[in-house]
């Protein structure tokens, strides 16, 4: 199939009102979800997922991608107006966005956030279109040993960078892998941890686990502290972003976008580190570096370009390799699975129309984001005024309906509640939930590839080192572990030195 044929096939799939409406609705839901303090882009995507089951696969997935894009931008609105990032990815936006709002320039900061987000979004989408196909064609050479080492590398990096320590991330990943063993054995069909319960024979429902891990703990934290995160929204002010502002920040926006693309394409790193790296690079290179942190518009542009640059790029490993780049793409992989689709290199051969349909939808989503974002900036005060006493129970009810709708099974609701308490305990103890979820999704794939490798080699483990690709991933895994351990060791040493100095000073 030529490129033009593929584009036409994609267009025939998404070139209808239903798809564009779903995408638009997704951007609106995401922007509102991201903008509500106490919700996040992740929660918005997770709660929208059950509503997509009744849709065509491409329509449902486009809607979720719209929520994702909208959610990442939406998080910047409370970050600037009430100093509360709507999503962790917007934390860097607070640094200059809120000081601008204090000076009465919130409208200008939000306008720049929107322009930078849309520019980064376009760059990220184009990178996805350019690189995903190339990576997928390369991944067609992968056999079970190569996939095993790739997944192992992804899990290592996700465990290492998600939380405050590699070991806590690793513990979280182990819990996810263990939970993934529940159900019938992949090869022999014998029971594993099913306790004779037929509901557990197919394994625990992925959506119940994910909503339990990412939505219920937020509800429980709001129950723990119902007054937390209250803030007063700043006024937008009279100033608006100008073309001159955009031009002055353009270099930082493009640089931030590429930082986002690079970090987003590595599984596990996510939008927050990308935003901070983009911000610090902009500060290092800017003529106005002294003004950073005091209300510099270029700082807002760099942070937003950094976090939105990730949005398209995280789909590169998802579509090309079948490995989710972060929690949100892990949820989106769930949407693929619900509709009987398995992302990965084979999808570029078997479902090329869906792939190109997604590419077209993603490009259109940047345009929708621009218009929806402009309206959301002006309408934020209505969103910020949603009382917590309505938001918390509303989210709870949505979770219950959504999880039940997956399999029409009350057992799944119970799984969600239990996972919610597990997730809350993890949150209280600063054990990251992302490695848990991604390990839970990749666990069966990891085990399957391992056992297939062993079957191929007559149980000789040397097959896991059979060629340059496996060595490449083993090398990356080793480098990742060494780098994370070294960074942790240095951070602890610096902390101790600071504390010793503080003790001496006392």
């Amino acid at each position, binding site marked *: 199939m030529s490129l033009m044929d593929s584009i036409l096939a994609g267009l025939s799939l998404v070139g209808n009102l239903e798809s564009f409406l779903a995408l638009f609705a997704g951007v609106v839901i995401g922007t509102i979800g991201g903008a509500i303090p106490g919700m996040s882009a992740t929660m918005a995507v997770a709660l929208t997922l059950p509503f997509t089951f009744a849709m065509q696969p491409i329509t449902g997935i486009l809607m979720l991608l719209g929520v994702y894009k909208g959610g990442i931008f939406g998080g910047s609105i409370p970050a600037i107006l009430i100093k509360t990032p709507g999503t962790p990815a917007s934390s860097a936006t607070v640094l200059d966005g809120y000081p601008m709002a204090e000076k009465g320039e919130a409208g200008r900061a939000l306008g720049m956030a929107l322009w930078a987000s849309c520019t980064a979004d376009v760059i990220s989408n184009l990178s996805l279109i350019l690189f995903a196909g190339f990576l997928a064609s390369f991944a067609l050479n992968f056999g079970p040993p190569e996939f095993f080492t790739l997944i192992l590398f992804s899990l290592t990096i996700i465990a290492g960078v998600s939380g405050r320590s590699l070991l806590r991330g690793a513990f979280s990943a182990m819990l996810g892998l263990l939970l993934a063993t529940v159900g019938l054995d992949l090869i022999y069909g014998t029971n594993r941890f099913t306790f004779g319960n037929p509901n557990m024979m197919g394994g625990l429902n992925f959506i119940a686990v994910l909503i339990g891990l990412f939505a219920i703990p937020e509800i429980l934290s*709001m129950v*723990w502290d119902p007054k937390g995160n209250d803030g007063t929204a700043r006024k937008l002010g009279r100033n608006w972003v100008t073309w001159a502002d955009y031009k002055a920040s353009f270099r930082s926006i493009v640089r931030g976008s590429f930082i986002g693309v690079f970090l987003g394409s590595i599984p596990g790193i996510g939008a927050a580190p990308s935003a901070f790296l983009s911000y610090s690079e902009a500060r290092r290179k800017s003529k106005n570096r002294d003004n950073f942190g005091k209300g510099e518009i270029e700082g807002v542009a760099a942070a937003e370009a950094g976090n939105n640059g990730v949005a398209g790029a995280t789909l590169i490993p998802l579509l090309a390799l079948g490995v989710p780049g972060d929690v949100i793409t892990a949820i989106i992989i769930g949407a693929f699975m619900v509709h009987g689709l398995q992302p990965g290199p084979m999808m570029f051969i078997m479902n090329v129309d869906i792939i190109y349909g997604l590419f077209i939808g993603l490009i259109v989503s940047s345009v929708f984001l621009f218009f929806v974002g402009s309206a959301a900036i002006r309408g934020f005060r209505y969103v910020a005024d949603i009382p917590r006493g309505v938001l*918390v*129970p509303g989210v709870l*009810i949505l979770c219950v309906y959504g999880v039940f709708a997956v399999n029409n099974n009350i057992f799944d609701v119970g799984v969600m509640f239990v996972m919610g308490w597990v997730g809350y305990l993890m949150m209280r103890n600063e054990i990251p939930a992302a490695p848990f979820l991604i390990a839970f999704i990749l666990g069966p794939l990891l085990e399957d590839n391992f056992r297939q490798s062993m079957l191929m080699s007559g149980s000789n483990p040397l097959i896991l080192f059979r060629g340059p690709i496996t060595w490449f991933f083993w090398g990356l895994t080793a480098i990742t572990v060494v780098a994370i351990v070294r960074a942790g060791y240095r951070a602890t040493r610096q902390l101790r030195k600071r504390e010793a100095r503080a003790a001496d000073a006392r």
Partner: protein
Amino acid sequence: MQNIHRQTIIGGVAILLALFLVFVAIPNWVYAPSNVRKLVLSPLFWPYALALLTLLVGLGLVFTGMRSDERLEPDPAEMPGGFFRLAIMAVIMVIYMAGLPRLGMVWTSMLAFAATAFLVRTRHPKTALICAIVIPLLLYAFFAHVAGVAIPQGLLVRLP
């Protein structure tokens, strides 16, 4: 408790979990056919490997926890009574689960909505009560009539 580090406790939990898996859970609740010749291909291999890795991670956590400065004290809630509210929330969840097949999803959700709203001490009780009635009904309308999901109706009142 003041001298115990959070990391050590997490490590201890990981070690206990690993030991429980190795000595109780896997031997009792993972079944392997008797004709599997190589252990590496057995359904038992993967859970045992993961349990051993969990044990190693647990030991690592305990070791690093000994040298950590982090304490176990939880962050205090801004509003007192956090643990009590959490306990009530757990009770609401249990009753919600138990009520689903008996009262039906819509009616149980209305009660759960109202209970949770008052638990978080809503400052808008009228809005909360209206939402408690409207939101479950709207969700029922979508899932039952648009998505074709068989929402549990319960034994008392049935919706169209």
